[in-house]
């Protein structure tokens, strides 16, 4: 994508960035159904938002949309306590994936993913954006609308909790 070209169509975005989007979504949600729903929501927002996209970091922009959609969903779930993520990591083991997704799922380092799911949402978002999406603290701060110092704190808290969970 070059600066002097028209904005990409949302189909192009979907096709070219599907793997990136899906990876971030799956690392955030730990569940193929939720990841698909999240990517659907992201693509809807991409479709609505493409007109305002400024040529630059497409993946930074997509990460921002993905994270906001994820956090919106988490806020929505919090109003329905039955669906809230339990604090106990033992209880958030991913469900068995459907047969057609088993191949993808069985190659995942499940322990790390499980530990990620045990993190509070805010910490998980910061860690995933840093270590999975590869964003800078500045970009993460903009995506989450928090100061850079808070980004650093959340990433570090998140990593410290992961370390305990993986011990």
């Amino acid at each position, binding site marked *: 994508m070059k600066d002097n070209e028209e904005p990409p169509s*949302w*189909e192009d975005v*979907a*096709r*070219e*960035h*599907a*793997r*990136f*989007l*899906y*990876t971030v979504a*799956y*690392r955030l949600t730990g569940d*193929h159904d939720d*990841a*698909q729903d999240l*990517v*659907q929501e992201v*693509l809807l927002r991409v479709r609505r938002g493409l007109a305002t996209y400024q040529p630059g970091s*497409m*993946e930074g922009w997509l990460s921002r949309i993905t994270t906001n959609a994820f956090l919106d969903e988490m806020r929505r779930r919090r109003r329905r306590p039955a669906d809230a993520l339990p604090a106990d990591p033992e209880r958030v083991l991913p469900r068995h994936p459907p047969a*057609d*997704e088993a191949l*993808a799922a069985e*190659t*995942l*380092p499940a322990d*790390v*993913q499980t530990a*990620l799911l045990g993190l509070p949402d805010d910490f998980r978002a910061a*860690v*995933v954006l*840093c*270590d*999975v*999406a*590869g964003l*800078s*603290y500045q970009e993460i701060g903009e995506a989450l609308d928090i100061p*850079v*110092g*808070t980004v*650093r*704190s959340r*990433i*570090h*808290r998140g*990593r*410290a909790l*992961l*370390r*305990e969970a*993986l*011990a």
Partner: protein
Amino acid sequence: MTMRRPGDHLDDELSGLLDGELSADETVAARTHLAGCAFCMAELAAIDRTRTLVRSLPAVDPPTSLLARAAAAPTDLDARPPARRAAVLASIVAAAAVLVVLLQWAPADRSVSPSLAGLVQAHATSVVNTDPADVAADQPPGVEAHVHIKGATGEAEFDVVPVVSRVPVAAKYTVTTAPGQPVADRPTIDVEVREQGVLAERIALDAETGVVLRRELYDVSGGVVRMALVERVRMTHTPAPTPAHRTAGGLVAAPSKLDGDYLRVGVYRRGRVVHMLFSDGLHALSVFAQAGALAASDLPGGGRLVRLGSKTGYHYDWPGGDVLLWESGGVVYTAVGDAPVEDVKAAAASMPQRSRLSIGERVRRRCRALAEAVTGG
């Protein structure tokens, strides 16, 4: 962010340091603290390990139904987004730029800070035309060359007396040869090196002398990781460095073989440094040894923690390969290699250790045990 009083342990500065996100002042403060605090050094290692675990999570392919549902063309699902690969590369480069500091473990009877640039130069300009028995140092090396190396982390140029190894090509490599294109106006033999069937390297050898004139190292997807090209060649009679005595001054044992079929082809003394040179028939590996304790504060930035067998060391990039640095039993070792990094690590990790445990080693072992206890490693 937390406010920290002087003397308190580091907190989220550790993640900031690993991510290369500290300001210059914060970096200096964190490094200064780390140099005197074994607890924080172990914390840094543990957080670094956790961070690496998350960063190593594989990409996840979306189910084919996803894009169908999104009404996008479902025919090209497994095409990798090029930008993702660029991002991965960028994160690797960023990781290479992370500052990590060495803790000065031992009560320094003599502290040592290896001159990495100097040792890299010594490696790159090595003469290896001797047989494995450390003889024939009087043989003329035959060729002097100007080499230009282009790697993921930058470029470098050296005037070198290149490695002419008479060590047989290690059995781990599958090698095929064919007549090659001339390099620097000299006829060559084209050597393809495969590991498990995948093209890992392509090497152009000077047809007359066997000197490596061009070397391309590939990643698994066929991309060039780095390339070394000889730009000028001239015949010469540069003498070899003086071989050290077998005992190498009683300082270190120079093993005849390292893991990965690296055979010792020479041991040299360069001032206070003993230079052991190994070859697997295709790659050279230099291991430099000097007595003393590692001087943390004098090392350059850009190093990363690395596990070398049971030891923890530091990994630096140079455009032609990798530099590993570790201390063991009152000796500071620096390994410089141009093979794939995992091979260099395995060979370095197989260097024999001294049996006597220094205070520094005991402290380090305790820290390592702590790090492993909290990371499950």
